């Protein structure tokens, strides 16, 4: 029995090594770790669209693999290592919770390059990348203020973390630039994904008088409810217009393809360097879905704002940013808040009549 096992192991080892040398010679292998199933919309789907874009861009020069449904936390380490052992030389780990596992594997395999989405820990062979979605939320705030009749915006939050809080602030600063009296009602569902609860939250917000709904959760359930009730909403991550053909005003689309293509190009050319990328509209790190279901003047305003944000002429967190207490927030980067202040944002701006839960 033991002999058989050893023989089997030897065969496995030999074939495994054979595989890795054969493929390493002719094509670059790029691996991806996904949080959810690929599906048809949402966070993971957007990452997979970018992966498919790699195949189209580089053809046979690149071979991509992905592992889906990888839970965040220590378990992810095995999945990442599995990709490395299979010969992947560039590995994208596409969720915040993969940060420490990625770092651990990166230390173990200094010759493999890692790209971690939305984290803050880096190493000489581990880059990070994320997008300035708050720019898109500023545009949405302006549109909401124009489209709302009740003057109340409904906001479905996932967890009260800085990324979501800065999104709420950016939305309200945009809204206030159009209508200084705009109000917001915020409901936290304490989940990134629970279609039923997200739908209930949307119903509650509409029942309480909000007529434009924004969500920072992943399912299209709120869009569907809003559509049934004949009101307006913004999508999230993906195009959600088929769930609300008459309801979706626009949607923040995660478009990772330009970044992924650039990084693979660098890898192929041997010029890959560790970087910290936080791109916005200027570098197409994300895009806005077509502006729909709104009058031409609102659409024009949205497009102008988008252009101004992309050129850097307009900063959502332009100083003075006034906190809820009526005092100006310290301005650490010239005429607007520093990146660090946005990344760690844990206060609401003036005009939000609510408090951050647990604070």
């Amino acid at each position, binding site marked *: 029995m033991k002999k058989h096992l050893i023989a089997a192991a030897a065969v496995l080892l030999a074939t495994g090594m054979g595989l890795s040398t054969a493929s390493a010679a002719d094509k670059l292998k790029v691996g991806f770790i996904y949080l959810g199933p690929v599906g048809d919309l*949402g966070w993971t789907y957007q990452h997979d669209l970018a992966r498919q874009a790699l195949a189209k861009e580089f053809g046979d020069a690149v071979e991509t693999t992905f592992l889906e449904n990888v839970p965040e936390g220590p378990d992810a380490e095995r999945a990442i290592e599995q990709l490395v052992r299979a010969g992947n030389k560039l590995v994208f780990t596409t969720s915040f919770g993969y940060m420490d596992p990625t770092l651990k594997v990166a230390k173990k395999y200094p010759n493999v390059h890692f790209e971690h989405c939305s984290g803050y820990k880096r190493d000489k062979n581990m880059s990070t990348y994320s997008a300035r979605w708050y720019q898109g939320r500023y545009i949405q705030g302006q549109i909401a203020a124009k489209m709302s009749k009740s003057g109340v915006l409904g906001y479905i939050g996932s967890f*009260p973390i800085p990324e979501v809080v800065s999104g709420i602030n950016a939305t309200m600063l945009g809204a206030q630039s159009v209508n200084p009296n705009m109000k917001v009602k*915020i409901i936290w*569902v*304490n989940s990134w994904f629970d279609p039923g609860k997200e739908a*209930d939250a949307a119903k*509650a917000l509409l029942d309480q008088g909000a007529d434009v709904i924004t969500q920072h959760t992943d399912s299209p359930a709120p869009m569907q409810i809003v559509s049934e009730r004949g009101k307006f909403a913004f999508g999230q991550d993906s195009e959600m217009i088929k769930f609300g053909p008459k309801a979706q005003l626009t949607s923040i689309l995660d478009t990772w393809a330009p970044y992924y293509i650039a990084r693979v190009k660098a890898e192929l050319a041997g010029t890959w360097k560790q970087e910290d990328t936080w791109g916005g509209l200027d570098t197409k790190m994300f895009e806005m879905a077509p502006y729909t279901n709104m009058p031409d003047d609102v659409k024009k305003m949205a497009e102008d704002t988008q252009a101004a944000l992309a050129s850097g002429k307009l900063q959502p967190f332009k100083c003075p940013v006034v906190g809820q207490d009526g005092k100006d927030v310290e301005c650490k980067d010239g005429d607007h808040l520093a990146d660090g202040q946005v990344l760690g944002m844990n206060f609401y701006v003036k005009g939000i009549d609510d408090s951050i839960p647990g604070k």
Partner: protein
Amino acid sequence: MALVEAIILSVLAASTPLLLAATGELVTERAGVLNLGVEGMMIVGAACGFGGAWLSGSIIIGALCGIVAGTLLSLIFAMMTLGLAVNQVATGLALTILGIGLSGLIGAGFVGERIAPAPHLHIPVLTDIPFVGRILFGEDGFVYLSLALVVAVWWFLYRTRAGLVLRACGDNHLSAHALGYPVLRIRMYAVMFGGACAGLAGAYLPLAYTPFFIPGMTAGRGWIALALTVFASWRPGWLVIGAYLFGAVTILQLHAQGWGIGIPSQFMSSLPYLATVIVLVLISRARTGGSTAPAALGTVFVPDR
């Protein structure tokens, strides 16, 4: 008034899947079988229910697909725990994991598709009665079906001989066996009924609640249904109260946030679970005769020959 009506309607919709799944589990547990796979049977019911409705264009066929899927999955559980006398807790947990994986596989073809949701009843005159009409006669059929099902289960358990035998199997399978009742077969029927209800509860989500399918869309409702069964101390009447209470707490905490009531949302999200614990304590303190759980719950029965 309009807001109160809107809140009640949301509560009805949110409670229905809990009530359906918990009703099935109540019957299963009354027969002495603990099936922790409710979440797994629900999610497969959701995938098959949506698939059936999407392919056929009929909500009823969708619901039937959900029921059949839940029943088939529960048969795997029955085969393991009744036929092979495997540990029920472990098998139930495995069933949930299997169900979640299976639903992703089944649902892969129609993620992102949409269907028209189950129509709401409209009975002329009755539905038009202000306030109560919309609540009592204007929701989708599942809402009223779930209530009818609880009444039927109550009648079966307490007013029929078959119900008495089923409870006997759950309280003392050795005595039931000695009296000549086919304990394993009765338990299998109970498990199948539980599976059918869980499948229907799962199908309710994509057919009426949020009319699309996404993997993982049950989001833990199967576990709440399990807690509900305990909360109701295995009594159908309490099950209704518990299901609507759970639904009400969920919906009201969302509204409370909108009103800006300064209680942290994390605390309010945990309220249904806290309520379960508190009621459990109250129930066990109020009763002098010990637990109301079926005495043979979760124990394996191997008939001697």
